[in-house]
């Protein structure tokens, strides 16, 4: 498990043609996260809370251009990322954006 001041990389799944990472973030997924990653695409919200009060609404942001899908519970700390290729630069790019969001969130 890779730990940094910005996030914990909790899980890696190395599939044949793509990768999945699960990150544990120091801040919860919220409107600032959606705003920061809006360049990837429009957010889709699945309203789980209307069925189960303790649940998190599910946020999904998918970019076919970048080949990335982000998913996680709003107001939760876990972020599920699917990378559409094995290109390490895609991972580096996404993690750099995560660090920027965390830094901005801390200063706001």
């Amino acid at each position: 498990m890779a730990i940094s001041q910005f996030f914990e990389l909790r899980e890696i799944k190395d599939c044949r043609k793509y990768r999945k990472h699960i990150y544990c973030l120091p801040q919860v997924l919220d409107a600032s996260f959606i705003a920061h990653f809006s360049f990837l695409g429009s957010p889709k919200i699945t309203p789980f809370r209307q069925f189960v009060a303790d649940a998190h609404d599910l946020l999904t942001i998918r970019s076919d251009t970048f080949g990335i899908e982000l998913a996680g519970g709003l107001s939760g700390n876990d972020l599920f990322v699917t990378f559409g290729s094995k290109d390490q630069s895609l991972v580096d790019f996404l993690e750099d954006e995560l660090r920027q969001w965390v830094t901005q969130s801390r200063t706001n």
Partner: protein
Amino acid sequence: MNTTQTIPSLTGEFHKNRNAFVVQGEPLIFHCHHYNTFLQLSLEETKHYLDVYPILQDSAQEIAYAQFSNYFESVPGLSAAERKQVVSQAFSEFGFGIVRLDELSSQGGTAVMPTEHYSATWMLKYGPRTAYDRGAALFATGFVAGATEAIFDRPLGYLEARQIECPTKGHSQCTVVVSPSLNKRSLEASPAEGVYEEFTPLVQPQDTGIRYEAIQNALTGMPIAGGQDGLIQAFGVTLTRHYANYYARISYRLLKAMEAKFGTDGVNIVKDLLVEAGHVCAFNTFGGIMESAEWNALIQPMISSREDWVHGIVACVNALGWGQWEIKELVPYQKLVIEVKSGYEANAYIQAFGQSEYPVSFLVTGGVAGIMNLIYNGDITETPELSEAYYDHVFKSSDKFSAQQTQCRAMGDQVDRFEATKR
């Protein structure tokens, strides 16, 4: 005449009194690509003993024909172009891929699939097929034949289809050629929902914080359909909203064919194959669900014990259209007893064959063992990588759980009942 803007869509309804999602008379169920490809592979491995390819293709033709014939009868006046649009749209919504039917006529023609579920996921799971193999899109090939018959009001069996291009054989897309059948083929009408059971909704168990009905409502309300490529990516797997009768037909036709050829030995071979397919399904579909963002958001907040993981995945199963699963007994690390009402396997078997001399719900049998192996033999709570090595660890160790079907509706019992223990 209806315009393209006003064609009623091929919509379905989730019936809570039997936990079935039915679209134009056909029950549809969720299954993942791991199960789909493994099941197909299992059938194809009998090709040296049986003529198995008609089983795989004709079953698809029969069911697609039934569904679209029902639909076109209920919406009269559609043009051929509009009917093709309905079929293409349904193909994508169900997660089978993208199919282009423009070149098809009442005498056949060519259909192309820029993306297709079986061929795309076969490449991911098993890699390319050999030069001697057929293409992987056996279901879609039969589907196209049956749908074309329905589009042009031809009788079932009038057309036949063969796949001539497949990404598993180096091509860029799937191409299927449809033509009038050279030989008379006796294809069978779909059993629709079969001999199903109606029941009152499950009473919330008192020994868990998992809210069964709320989970079912949340998941059946999710818009799970094919994306731009006509494939469904959800819960960490590639899903299809597939035909319950397709699974039943290919499984039980294989069973009967092997029984006819090899007697009891043949039955036992197929039982083992189909239960193993259930293990593969449980490992990948259930495991994928339990490691998904959806589980993390919806179900994880309700979990306070390892046993809640069992309740959580059973609650999810009750949204898949597989019938109603109910935990009757759970002894941590030792035993799981599940009863199933209106299971799609039993519904289809009883309709097609009547009474059986042996249990027939093989998918459930594998699935029940799978739940215990994931939660109490392995440890899905630690989100392990669902690799082949991990599969062997949880399903092939000497410490594994195995399941038996102890009661079977097809054998005359009141319920389908399954028990998983370490044997």
